[in-house]
């Protein structure tokens, strides 16, 4: 094979091979550098920032490789701008949804309502953000299912980010019997919350009698927790509260109805007098 054979214009086979070599070197360099950065910064930088840094470096190196190959291929960048403009209009009309997703992706990266690793709900999907790419965002649902959502949908749909704020509150309603001491129950619950490291000291927890229900004295229990830890605490605390209350002789009330029969007046009188 003759390396100086002209392929088109002034571009020879050697030029094409040089461009391929530049791209190969660029890809290897970009991959190597991103792997090195991921390893060395893994413990120092958050996952989402690391993804952005490594992607910027990866595509930056590839971009430089593309620019470096232009003169070899005899391409004039200023001419490209005009051609690119026209090409862009054509592509824009032909693929509106892709461009829409791309622009939404850029805005998502700028506004950053979600980050990689966040627990979110986007429209009908709930899960953890696995990746935010230019065209789409991928989630891993709580069942471990992969969901790819186009960025246009992410951008226009309502987003609930469960961990955007550092702390969040959750609560329970605990119903105890009318015969039990509500003050004692409140004290037991407060002690349990105080003893748990993930139940925040401040804002302080709230434990109070919320209402006198049909079958129980209803105690509201509210506590704040680090946003990333709330589910573990929520799973743990309710059963702990139930066990702690029962240990002290306070029982969780259950719905009951007393029925008096009209033909049993003696029984009713006896019950009333007791």
């Amino acid at each position: 094979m003759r390396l100086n054979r002209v392929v088109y214009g002034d571009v020879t086979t050697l030029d094409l091979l040089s461009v391929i070599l530049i791209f190969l070197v660029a890809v290897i360099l970009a991959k190597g550098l991103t792997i090195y950065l991921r390893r060395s910064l893994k413990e120092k930088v958050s996952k989402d920032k690391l993804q952005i840094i490594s992607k910027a470096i990866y595509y930056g190196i590839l971009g430089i490789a593309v620019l470096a190959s232009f003169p070899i291929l005899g391409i004039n960048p200023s001419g490209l701008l005009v051609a690119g403009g026209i090409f862009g209009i054509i592509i824009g009309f032909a693929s509106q949804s892709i461009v829409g997703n791309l622009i939404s992706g850029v805005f998502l990266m700028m506004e950053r309502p979600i980050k990689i690793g966040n627990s979110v709900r986007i429209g009908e999907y709930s899960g953890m953000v696995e990746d935010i790419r230019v065209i789409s965002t991928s989630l891993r649902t709580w069942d471990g299912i992969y969901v790819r959502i186009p960025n246009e949908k992410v951008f226009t749909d309502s987003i609930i980010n469960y961990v955007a704020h550092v702390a969040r509150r959750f609560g329970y309603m605990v119903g105890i019997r009318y015969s039990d001491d509500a003050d004692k129950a409140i004290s037991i619950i407060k002690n349990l919350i105080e003893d748990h490291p993930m139940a925040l000291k401040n804002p302080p927890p709230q434990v109070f009698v919320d209402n006198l229900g049909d079958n129980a004295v209803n105690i509201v229990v509210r506590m704040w927790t680090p946003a990333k830890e709330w589910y573990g605490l929520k799973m743990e605390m309710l059963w702990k509260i139930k066990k702690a209350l029962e240990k002290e002789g306070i029982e969780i009330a259950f719905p009951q109805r007393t029925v008096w029969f009209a033909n049993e007046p003696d029984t009713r009188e006896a019950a009333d007098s007791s």
Partner: protein
Amino acid sequence: MKTNADQSSPRSLDKEQGQQRTYSKAGSFYGRHNLPVSLSREGFSISIDQVGDTWLYQRECDGDRVEKKLLTSINMVLINPVEPLNRPKEITSYLLVEFERPLMIEPGVKRRIFVTFPIEIGVFMSSKRGFEIIDILTMQKQKFTLYGNPRTGVICKYWKSSIHATEPQVDPIRQGVMRLNVSNVSDHWVEVTRAVFNAFGMKLFYSTDLVAMKATMKILGKYMAETDFSNSPLRKDMTNSLELYTSRKLIVTAPKFIMEQGI
């Protein structure tokens, strides 16, 4: 119910003095040890014993038992206090010390006070590349809190301390002493109820009977202050601890903390 307030109040002083004989041997606890090693204190024990060609690390602390097999050629372990932000889970790099009584400080005044902080003990194994952490344990009750509001605030490790005019006597396995230089550069009397510190600036030192840090708190206004650490020991005979956060620090990581959501 246990409380994490420091035990250096006058009420508990007798008890501490009684315990001092026990924990005055902390110097033989912290530092480098050749394997095999077996160390125990009230409430916990650490041992590394040879089992065949490998080493078995065993630790028991407050009923929590950990066992790990170690494959190592360098038979040395380092035990020293680390930043108290790793247990039960590393979720923040900030420590909030709440004062038992508020501190009122006059404008333009500089004062030196002493507060306590919780101790977490790091167990490091030696390797050709330095030391690597293999376990962290603590004897203190753990609690977190929020400094500021949920949107702009930060989660902090929580600790309640009395304010002391002189160095308090504490068990170095459980509590450390922080010398805090408080200066009020504002034009008002200021009430200080808490101080928040960034772990990336912490510099821990230990000796036979003390674990200590030196920090500063510059009060900039009624609701704002700046905290920082000093890289020098409280006493000359103290050894610098091998910290966890300092090794992870990037050039861009600021070791100071600006308390702008209230003091």
